[in-house]
């Protein structure tokens, strides 16, 4: 649970991490306020997923410090368990903690999955699977969500629908979100700050604030302008 009056939900201070001789994260400092949405963009293989692992305490930094509230990881693939139906997959975090699983039903409804609660995982479309994975992530109750390219495998229309849903879900129940993406437009549409990383080893090139009102559209002049700025920072 979030400490009263906490000013940061996630804080990485001068974090460095290497695998053997390969330095993947070099002197990265990132601060995320409670309820804030941060997008991390950068070239592929630059160490973005390692940053999420560090925040989730799945790895420890070689040097520097990581302070974070309890964080849950949503990996790139949905990784639904085929031996459970859609509802059981969504309710997995509740089951693991031995809690009442009824709130999973409501969540499935909110995600437009009514009628599919008892569907087998292989009967669901890609977009539905991703929504079940989102439901599972949210039901973990963790104050920090670490999303690794959460929309990467989806087609454009499905992705737009999920963007809208996620923005709405975060507006009603704020969570701290750190998400990794390749898609600069997605970063500008969803985030409060966009952190631009260098090619490996990852360093923070620039942190760009996105002070735009929501809902945002890809065609808004401000969104287009910020997108260009992020792309310029990456180049």
């Amino acid at each position, binding site marked *: 649970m979030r400490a009263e009056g906490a000013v940061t939900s996630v804080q990485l201070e001068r974090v460095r991490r290497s695998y053997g001789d390969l330095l993947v994260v070099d002197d990265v400092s990132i601060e995320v306020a409670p309820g804030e949405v941060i997008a991390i963009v950068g070239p592929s293989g630059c160490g973005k997923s390692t940053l999420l692992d560090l925040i989730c305490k799945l790895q420890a930094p070689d040097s520097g410090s990581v302070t974070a509230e309890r964080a849950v990881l949503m990996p790139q693939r949905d990784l639904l*368990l085929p031996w459970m139906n859609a509802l059981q997959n969504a309710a997995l975090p509740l089951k693991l903690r031995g809690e009442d699983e009824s709130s999973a039903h409501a969540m499935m409804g909110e995600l437009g999955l009514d009628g599919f609660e008892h569907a087998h995982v292989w009967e669901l479309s890609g977009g539905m699977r991703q929504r079940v994975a989102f439901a599972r992530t949210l039901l973990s109750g963790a104050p920090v969500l670490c999303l690794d390219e959460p929309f990467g495998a989806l087609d454009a229309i499905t992705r737009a629908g999920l963007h809208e849903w996620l923005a709405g879900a975060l507006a009603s129940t704020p969570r701290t979100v750190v998400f990794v993406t390749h898609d600069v437009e997605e970063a500008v549409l969803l985030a409060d700050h966009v952190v631009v990383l260098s090619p490996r080893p990852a360093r923070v090139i620039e942190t760009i604030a996105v002070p735009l009102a929501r809902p945002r559209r890809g065609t808004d002049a401000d969104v287009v302008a910020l997108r260009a700025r992020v792309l310029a920072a990456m180049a």
Partner: protein
Amino acid sequence: MAALAIICALVGGWEAYAQWGGVDDFILPAPSEIAAALFDDRSLLLRDTLVTAQEIVFGLVIALILGALLALVMHLSKALRGAAWPLLVASQAIPVAVIAPLLVTWWGFGIAPKLFVVAIVCYFPVVVTTLGALRSIDPDLHKLLRTLGATRWQRMRYAEIPAALPAALAGAKIAVAIGSIAAVFAEYTGSSEGLGHQLLRSLPQLETARAWAAVVILAALSLICFYALQFAERHLAPWAHRRKDHV
């Protein structure tokens, strides 16, 4: 239909050769004579079938449980995995012909030495397939479960055991064929009943048709075990045949 036609043609060809090819029927009995032996000696063969069926089925069950447990333990401990592999492979190199008579002197003519032989021959494919499935679980799934707060036991219960189940059954399917050979062999080295014992007795008596009838029953037993395992796999682990991607 095509499969049935091929089988009919093969059996028909055998029948024709045995009937009109000038072969003595104690050297190669015709399928019709084998069928007659199956019917005439049915009470004798039924008794032997029940004995051998128990050896094969219980031996396979022991192999399945033992193999799956071994795979789980080896999956959990890297040190044990390293130590166990050479021992497991070595266990497969033990000539059953050498130890089977010893087992009879230790445990007598009962079912125990037969179960041991069937199990030791059959558990190896179960270990290989089960361990393979456990090792190929997506590391991201473990990460996800850890951040969801799953304990080691919960990760095993919700991710590893379900992933291992269809693989263990697939390993047992591979083991079925060698399992029935192992049961016959174990009976050869010391028993007073069973299809292997029947084979051993019928051949010197020139009851070749009866010996072949025992072989037909053995084949049928293997088929039944194979399809029973397939049935179990489809009902206990339906996802194994349906999923497009894996976990």
